[in-house]
């Protein structure tokens, strides 16, 4: 099951920041808590079952402990704010063995979660949400199956149906309530991206998958009592390990990629950080035009790597002050192809490769390398082209000062329809208005080995000078 974590988000660099919880979200949390209290007061702890009283208490305590362990040891999903844990299996086992009241109590253990860094509001919300989901699932099971207790072989098919319904209700209640809080707390820009349906399908599927363990725990109970909960923990923790490992590798991957891209850029003093900024700009546009999570991730990498082929351009050409010869101009025009050559073997989305190859095409068809026009140009390339030109204009070059953000926007508007896709330009301007744009700091005099680009091929306001034969 999934819990919300609004207060603290870990960014890729490990930095943490506080997120304000909006007033609307506070009211929503209040309503959910009241609903949970009301629902709990309507239930008794145990619906009468064939289990002796002391066994019921043991079962309740074990399931509460199971919930707490699962809940405290969450695995981060790709999304940085929703954390996933298999604790729903404990709630659902309580629903089968003991009834809705006990399921609600087990869910409410989320209040006591051993995770630190949770704000009081978050604890309250998570506890109330899981309690409500537990009561709802328990009531569904009881309504369909008419009775709770140790499942028996003879009535298994009915139990299975009732359990499937209860699990579905549980997942729905859990994600519905979470969706509400994300919706209401959308004022924060960091949360917007998270609340988008990033890996939602996987999340729902894994929730439903692990929910079925609840039935397994319940069925094992008559054979091995509390040990059922212990042994079920083993595969859960192995899965959790794999998930955490995945998240860790993903961060390591991104960090390595960053470092390598920086290495490529150090060759040229003025364009340091260019790839990173273009990548950020491309992601801003992607969010604005509503690309899904996988494509956004791909465009992030495509933006970062779009100029990697520039390494194939000889330093003398990059440094040349006078007009370029036809041949020299041709080597510059080839850099998207060289870039493609380097990254082709990476298991990327096909689209990211297209974005790298065509990021110097123009809407009017006068770009390179293929001279595509209008919507022949892949969407990724149209997005990267805008972020690319904007960053070039708003950075310092050896032959001019950096333009201001407003001037850059004016230039983008000028180029919309001829060089740039107007829709993308519009989206970028809206995104900048909302999130702002960080220009690189003023570059001092180059001090180290780095070479200095004298003509920037990305700069639309100062096109490359080519010798006219």
């Amino acid at each position: 099951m999934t819990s919300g974590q609004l207060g603290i988000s870990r960014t890729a660099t490990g930095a943490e920041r506080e997120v304000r919880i909006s007033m609307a979200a506070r009211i929503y949390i209040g309503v959910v808590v009241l609903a949970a209290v009301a629902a709990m007061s309507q239930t008794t702890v145990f619906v009468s079952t064939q289990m002796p009283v002391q066994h019921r208490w043991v079962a309740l305590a074990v399931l509460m402990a199971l919930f707490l362990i699962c809940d405290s040891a969450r695995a981060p999903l790709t999304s940085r704010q929703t954390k996933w844990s298999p604790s729903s299996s404990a709630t659902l086992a309580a629903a089968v063995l003991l009834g809705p009241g006990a399921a609600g109590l087990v869910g409410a253990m989320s209040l006591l979660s051993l995770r630190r860094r949770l704000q009081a509001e978050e604890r309250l919300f998570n506890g109330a949400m899981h309690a409500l989901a537990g009561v709802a699932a328990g009531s569904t099971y009881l309504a369909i199956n008419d009775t709770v207790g140790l499942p028996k072989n003879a009535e298994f098919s009915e139990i299975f149906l009732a359990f499937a319904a209860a699990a579905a209700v549980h997942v729905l209640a859990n994600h519905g309530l979470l969706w509400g809080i994300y919706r209401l707390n959308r004022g924060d820009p960091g949360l917007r991206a998270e609340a988008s349906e990033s890996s939602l399908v996987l999340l729902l599927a894994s929730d439903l998958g692990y929910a079925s363990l609840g039935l397994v725990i319940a069925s094992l109970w008559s054979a091995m009592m509390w040990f059922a909960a212990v042994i079920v923990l083993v595969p859960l923790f192995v899965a959790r390990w794999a998930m955490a490992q995945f998240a860790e590798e993903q961060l390591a991957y991104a960090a390595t990629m960053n470092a390598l891209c920086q290495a490529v850029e150090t060759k040229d003093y003025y364009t340091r950080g260019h790839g990173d900024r273009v990548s950020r700009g491309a992601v801003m546009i992607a969010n604005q035009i509503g690309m899904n999570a996988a494509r956004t991730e791909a465009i992030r990498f495509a933006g970062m790597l779009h100029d990697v082929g520039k390494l194939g351009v000889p330093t003398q050409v990059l440094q040349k002050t006078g007009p370029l010869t036809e041949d020299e101009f041709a080597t510059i025009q080839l850099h998207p192809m060289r870039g493609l050559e380097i990254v082709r073997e990476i298991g990327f989305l096909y689209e990211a490769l297209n974005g790298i190859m065509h990021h110097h095409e123009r809407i009017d068809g006068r770009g390179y390398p293929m001279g595509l026009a209008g919507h022949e140009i892949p969407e990724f390339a149209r997005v990267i082209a805008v972020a690319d030109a904007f960053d070039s204009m708003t950075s310092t070059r050896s032959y001019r000062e950096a333009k201001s953000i407003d001037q850059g926007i004016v230039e983008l508007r000028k180029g919309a329809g001829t060089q740039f896709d107007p829709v993308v330009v519009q989206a970028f301007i809206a995104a900048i208005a909302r999130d702002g744009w960080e220009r690189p700091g003023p570059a001092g005099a180059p001090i180290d080995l780095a070479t200095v680009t004298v003509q920037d091929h990305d700069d639309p306001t100062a096109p490359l000078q080519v010798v006219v034969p």
Partner: protein
Amino acid sequence: MTSATRRLEPDRLAYWQAMDSGRLLLMGAAAMLVTASFAVSAVVLRHQAVDWHAALAFGGFVAFGELLRLALPGGREAAPIAMVGAMSYALLLTVPEGSGKPVVLPAVLVVAVCAVGMTVGALPHVAAGRPAGVTGMCTRLIAVAGVAFIFRSPVVRFLVPTAHHPEKQWWLEVAVMAVLIFFGWLIDTVVGALIRADDVGALFSVALVDEMQLQWRLGLAVGASVIIMVFSVKELGLGVLAAFIGPLLVTQVAFRRYAGIRATYLQTVRSLARVTEVAGYVEAGHSRRVSRLAVAVGRGLGMAEPELLALEYAALMHDIGQLSLRDPIPGGATVLVSPTDQDRIAEYGSDVIGRAGVLDEVAGLVRCQAWPARGHSPAPPLGSRIIKAANAFDDMVGSSTDRDRSAAAIDRMRLDPIAYDVEVVEALRDVAGRRVPSRL
């Protein structure tokens, strides 16, 4: 890849030529086991009723699991879901079917059903043009057979509750099962390590530790799932198998995503390491050849898999520091540059890699790659000494496959025992002839 290494790769050979005696032995044993099981099953089943529902359900489960094989880091393949199904079937003495009389499952039937299930599950792989994974299936089958036969031996049956003695304790049964599952896992792991050591030219002891480190978590998950499954089926009958598919699938997806990102990671580093080639700093294919060579040498010297991974990354990126040079070195051969410049390039490359914050070991190896093997304080780590030798070898030999040329390069390095580690050079001489493909 050069044409010579391609010629030597096993997948270019006819199937039987690529097989070594270890594989043949394994397959022969499995084939005999299966044949015997079918024969005995046919005899046994004349006198005894068979629970076809259970056979079908578990056979289907095994086939399903074999269909969803899991690629693990290092080009390994596992079938955890198939293993759960097969082991559970092996550990079920009886299956209660409604109110019917419990039927005892003979071990030979377990083997026969699992063999059929695995074969059926492997067919789609073959149809899709993927390798059939016969070796893995044989290993699994032998492990399952071992467990099934031991579990039905009189000694073990004395310990666990049966229809005649239901009063035995559940924990005793759990303990017996745990021991047997561990035994099965051990068979699987040891055979896997034997095959792998043979494949990649590693020492068996190193391969075994690698295999265990990589497999123990998955093995633990499989073992616990087997125990849970056996008990649930005894309580609730075969229908409960459906409830297992969900959790097992989720675990499998988690592992698959983990292995997937590791593969992408390596692929990306491999590709991006080529920027030095595209920029004209080094000869085409240099990074890849050096990394192949370095990994093979490291393996020959008994390095474990995590170290080899760091070595492979470091070897791939060892020339990244050249990006700081204004103009490429003629021919890209760092072996021709002054030691100070070599150190500066290494230093810079190490800084670049260190900036990632997650590859400190790799950065360390790159930093020391130009240090002489002897007389330098602090002494360079083994990985760096390997990269130094592999880099020099490739700078001198390149993509050439001329044996005289590589022998001359080795001789030249032998003459300089201060710069090049003697042991590393000997290992390099061994692998330069073979050129084992990297499997990381």
